[in-house]
């Protein structure tokens, strides 16, 4: 349906706005279609949430905004909302005949831009373009600040100068905020600056998130409280408010995962609609660890997109699920989170080099532990930085100890709960084994299954089993060398992007590209980067519209991240990428993917990953 990347509404905005309407009521669908057409918008209608997601995934940049009903038979509208936010980062408007405050609040919590009550007036629909416009502005802002475009180029070249901006396009709002924060952080300001600044956004990098999760687990989820967590985390610049809001998101994520897990438990199958937070966490954590290592904890702020990503110990529940959860988690979390996260990661990545320094600093704060390993990684990880940060956090725990043990994070992750994660790592090596799994995207929901398939890889996979997971493989291989495995695994995912919208399925492609490029384990991060780069390139190439593409690419990367697991699809889709061992250039990518959503693993790969991430 819609056109390709280029936004159709260039000249006469908002005319030509590409709207996707999802409603199970055919009568309403007709009415809405007519109303939107009268507003001169380009309308696509859909009676099922699944179809809508497929459409969206197929055309990453095919739509500008999504209007969806809350009550639908095949999927809860809120879930769809989360997915869209995480994977595509498009503005979503919810509709319902029910105007109860609690429902509206839920909508907003899940990231809806607006909540309309039926019967809907045409004038209400006329104004929906403002949400699209707003997002664009934020994107631009982010990009400008991050010099994304350049960053992208850099990334492509393997330079870790991954600009956060690059991710911005993908991230948009969510990320924009983050970016701002990240920016400041990026400059070695550390988080301290952020914290000192009133309301400075805290970027929940992988590392940081990992710490958070660790603290939560230590305290015991039931007795957890922001103050306790804060004390345990021992991060000087973090405030109680930061923790409190993060905890809130985390809780939301977990509850979603819970439900998801029940349904899905395994990677493979789980449709992760909710991205079990646990999974994500697990994944994230894994990723984080990976990232961290590489990036020096590139910005601790790595916002895992789902914050949860941060080393969340993927709930023990299905490993796959965890991964998924992880992946999804970030995604699930304010969509923005993912987007935002990515940016961070990106930033971290690109700046890996830069990051390393800045990141290390910031990260240091966060990571603390990883410092050495991270530093090592950071260089590699440039790209991974962002990822790493996130991961590093995650990994930190893992890494610190393991850092040298490339897998450390995997392990750590596993320890955490993420059993699945570990698998990821391991799996990653293999990951991409499922290689053809690329379906990350395809299944987005299904990606989880792929992950599941991958998870089996654990341990072994990482070693680079298929190139795709280079990162992982590297990880495994490099155990000794460092875990800093280029977060590339995730990046590989980006490669998969073949051009942009490659939707996750790209796994193979990406992984391959990445894997090839990443041959170095050491650079694991790089591996990822390569993949990422490729992915990135794909992204860049793919995306016609700079922003759109970026976003798409990122998203694609994500998805494609098969390696990465970017499948973030939120579900664990990311994992599927992981399973793509081949892709795995980033091996950890799987994990990363989850985590990554935002961060493409290796710097080089990061670019790719990042791209992919954003896509989500």
């Amino acid at each position: 349906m819609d056109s390709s990347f280029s936004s159709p509404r260039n000249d006469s905005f908002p005319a030509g706005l590409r709207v996707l309407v999802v409603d199970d009521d055919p009568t309403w669908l007709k009415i809405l279609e007519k109303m939107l057409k009268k507003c001169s918008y380009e309308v696509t209608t859909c009676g099922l949430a699944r179809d809508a997601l497929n459409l969206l995934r197929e055309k990453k940049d095919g739509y500008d905004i999504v209007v969806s009903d809350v009550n639908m038979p095949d999927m809860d509208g809120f879930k769809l909302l989360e997915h869209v936010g995480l994977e595509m980062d498009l503005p979503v408007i919810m509709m319902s005949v029910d105007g109860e405050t609690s429902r509206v609040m839920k909508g907003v919590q899940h990231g809806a831009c607006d909540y309309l009550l039926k019967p809907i007036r045409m004038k209400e629909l006329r104004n929906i373009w403002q949400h699209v416009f707003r997002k664009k502005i934020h994107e631009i802002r982010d990009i400008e600040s991050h010099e994304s475009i350049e960053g992208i180029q850099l990334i492509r070249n393997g330079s870790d100068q991954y600009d956060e901006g690059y991710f911005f396009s993908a991230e948009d709002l969510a990320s924009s905020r983050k970016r701002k924060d990240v920016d400041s952080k990026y400059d070695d300001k550390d988080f301290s600056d952020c914290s000192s600044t009133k309301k400075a956004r805290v970027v929940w990098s992988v590392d940081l998130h990992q710490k958070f999760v660790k603290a939560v687990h230590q305290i015991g989820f039931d007795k957890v409280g922001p103050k306790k967590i804060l004390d345990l985390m021992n991060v000087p610049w973090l405030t109680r408010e930061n923790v409190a809001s993060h905890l809130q998101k985390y809780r939301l994520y977990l509850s979603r995962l819970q439900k998801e897990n029940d349904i899905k438990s395994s990677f493979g199958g789980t449709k992760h609609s909710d991205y079990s937070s646990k999974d994500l966490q697990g994944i994230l954590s894994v990723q984080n660890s990976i990232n961290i290592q590489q990036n020096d904890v590139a910005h601790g702020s790595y916002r895992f997109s789902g914050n949860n990503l941060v080393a969340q110990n993927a709930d023990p529940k299905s490993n796959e699920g965890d991964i998924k959860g992880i992946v999804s988690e970030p995604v699930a979390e304010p969509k923005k989170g993912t987007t935002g996260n990515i940016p961070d990661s990106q930033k971290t990545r690109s700046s890996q080099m830069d990051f390393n320094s800045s990141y290390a600093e910031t990260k240091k704060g966060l990571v603390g532990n990883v410092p050495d390993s991270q530093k090592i990684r950071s260089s590699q990880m440039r790209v991974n930085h962002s990822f790493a940060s996130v991961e590093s956090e995650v990994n930190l725990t893992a890494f610190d100890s393991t850092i040298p043990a490339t897998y450390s994070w995997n392990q750590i992750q596993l320890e955490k709960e993420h059993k699945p994660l570990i698998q990821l790592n391991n799996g990653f090596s293999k990951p991409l084994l499922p290689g053809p799994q690329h379906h990350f995207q395809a299944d987005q929901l299904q990606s989880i299954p792929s992950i599941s398939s991958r998870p089996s890889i654990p341990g072994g996979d990482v070693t680079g089993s298929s190139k795709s997971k280079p990162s992982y493989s590297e990880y495994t291989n490099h155990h000794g060398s460092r875990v800093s495995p280029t977060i590339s695994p995730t990046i590989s995912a980006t490669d998969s992007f073949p051009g942009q919208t490659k939707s996750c399925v790209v796994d193979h492609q990406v992984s391959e590209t990445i894997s090839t490029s990443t041959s170095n384990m050491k650079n694991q991060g790089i591996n990822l980067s390569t993949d990422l780069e490729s992915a990135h390139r794909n992204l860049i190439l793919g995306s016609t519209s700079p922003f759109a593409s970026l976003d798409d690419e990122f998203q694609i990367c994500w998805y494609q991240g098969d390696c990465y697991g970017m499948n973030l699809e939120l579900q664990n889709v990311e994992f599927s990428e992981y399973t793509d061992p081949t892709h795995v250039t980033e091996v950890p990518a799987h994990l990363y993917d989850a985590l990554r959503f935002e961060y493409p693993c290796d710097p080089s790969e990061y670019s790719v990953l990042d791209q992919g991430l954003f896509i989500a």
Partner: protein
Amino acid sequence: MDKNQSRRQVRLMRQSLFDQGFLDEQFIQLEELQDDSNPNFVEEIATSYYRDSYRSLQAIELALEKTPRDFSKLDSYMHQFKGSSSSIGAKKVKAECQQFREYCDAGNGEGCMRTFQALKKEHATLKKRLEAYFQMARQAGPIEAACRPK
């Protein structure tokens, strides 16, 4: 009846639908959407509504007959039906939907049954009225423009 008379008739019919509370302003919204590219838009929507709602009503009927009654399921069906009815502005039908949902919340099976019967009645009445109206409108000619408010 000549054209003028027909048109007048149509106008009156339309007005009474509003006056008697059968329709609310959503119907006007639909009328405003009608244009040259969709000259019978309102009628199409009404037809679509009746086709889908018929199925919904059957489902609710079946669910009501089951014992023990699953109120949350009934509530969700009715929620869906209410949303659907809001699409054409079926005011009285919507009111019955609301009543039904309240009985569901209270777990009042009898109340639900009674309300459901009333709802079906309103649903059928509106259908007849609309059919007559649309038929007259077609006879009166396109100028009637689906009874644009004058």
